[in-house]
């Protein structure tokens, strides 16, 4: 059941170029791996969609890449400051899978630690732009890491059940290798509750709201 509450920042930790923002959970349900939350971005009009990274007892943790004004404001939050959190939203990963393999690229590793915990620490293949970005691999147990120019698809065994999150070219490459994969997509999103029609993506030839049909979609 989704809720909206003002929650306090418990801690802020640097993970390579990213920030792990840990919030006090309050009455918010952490939801299923791959679901997301709208986080109030201080000083900005619109909240930002973030998938849950970790759900330690009493906390919700989000891995954030400071790429724009909203994410920078989130990464600058100090312990004790409060932001509104709305969620969980959307549809997460289907967990009844055999031989799972988690695949992540860049900030797309964000939902994988929580997913890994739910699946009992399956193998993971992670790709990053630089060694600095690859420091985020510490969050995902049992992970093999490649750094550009290497590609994460080199590590994908198509016989596995692939659960992936990452940039679009990576997801398209995974889709080609593993048509049975579950892919977590990203889109600009104003509301997260199906109202703004901003986050549409093409699904089977139709534009669909990612927050309603996703963000996790079957590859084929």
């Amino acid at each position, binding site marked *: 059941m989704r809720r*909206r509450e003002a929650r306090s920042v418990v801690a802020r930790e640097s993970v390579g170029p990213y920030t792990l923002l840990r919030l006090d959970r309050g009455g918010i349900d952490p939801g299923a791996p791959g679901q997301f939350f709208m986080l*109030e971005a201080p000083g*900005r*009009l*619109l*909240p930002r969609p973030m998938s849950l990274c970790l759900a330690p007892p009493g906390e919700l943790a989000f891995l954030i890449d400071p790429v724009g004004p*909203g994410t920078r404001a989130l990464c600058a939050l100090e312990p004790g400051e409060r932001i*509104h959190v*709305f969620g969980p939203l959307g549809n997460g990963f289907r967990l009844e899978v055999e031989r799972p393999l988690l695949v992540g690229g860049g900030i797309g590793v964000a939902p994988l630690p929580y997913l890994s915990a739910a699946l009992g620490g399956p193998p993971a293949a992670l790709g990053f732009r630089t060694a600095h970005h690859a420091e985020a691999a510490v969050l995902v147990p049992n992970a093999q890491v490649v750094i550009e120019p290497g590609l994460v698809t080199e590590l994908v065994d198509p016989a596995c059940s692939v659960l992936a999150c990452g940039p679009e070219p990576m997801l398209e490459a995974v889709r080609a290798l593993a048509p049975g994969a579950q892919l977590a997509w990203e*889109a*600009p*999103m*104003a*509301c997260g*509750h*199906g*109202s*703004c*029609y*901003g*986050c*549409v*993506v093409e699904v089977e030839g*139709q*534009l669909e*709201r990612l927050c*309603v049909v996703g963000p996790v979609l079957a590859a084929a």
Partner: protein
Amino acid sequence: MKLLNASGCLDALTAPEIAQQLDVFVTKTVTPLPREGNPPVRIAETEAGMLNSIGLANPGIDRFLAETLPRLAALEKPLWVSVGGFDAAQYAASCARLDGRPEVEALELNLSCPNVEEAAEGAAEIVAACRAATSKPLWAKLSPALPQVPEVARAVAAAGADGLSLVNTIRGLALDPGTLRPVLGTAVGGYSGPALKPIALAAVYACAQAVDLPIVGMGGVMTGEDALDLLAVGATHVALGTVLFRDPFAPARVRAELTAAAAERGFEVPADSPPAAPTLNPASRV
């Protein structure tokens, strides 16, 4: 005073908990034929608002009547349907089909799409055609970008509109700071959010003096004080748009803030009044 959503800013089927906080739910604009809408990117945040380029995505009137309307009726909220089209006959045809549906309380005519916003005659012609097609209350939603909004208001009033909805978005453009290319797939989109409020106040203020019709005021309402400002310049009702993206519990919050803000100033917000009552000065002294 009724609290509504601005058309296109709320899907009551995916966010029923928001719709339940409102007095009236207004649908996304329905056009005669289905429209997939514009290609992404469709939204962009700016310093004082946001741009959208959705492009009237909707299932078309046939599927709306067969599939969407029964599901909306199950919410048991007063329901206004926003009607769009590309000429007067299209609007009127949709109004005629909605006329016999008891689930629908009123129709809002979206007269603010680029094809119809140029001339007062165009808006009035559409209202007159719809008036002949339905006995349901007709609310004419006007663009604040018109050079003479009050003249259009007079024209649609004379053509049989029962109320005005003011305002729709205005055109804007945002650039990606890195590439200096437009963010939106269509380059230009509709600008909404806090920056729209003074524009909405000006339009409501001018139209409230020009015509004797109730007005749904909207544009940049984030707080109860914003809603009070719209009532103070002549709005009868208030609608919430962009704020619903930021805060799904805005209707309950704005309502409480409005009551408190009015009381602080020695005004009372009138309880709901009949839709056609000419309440141009709703914030009366206690």
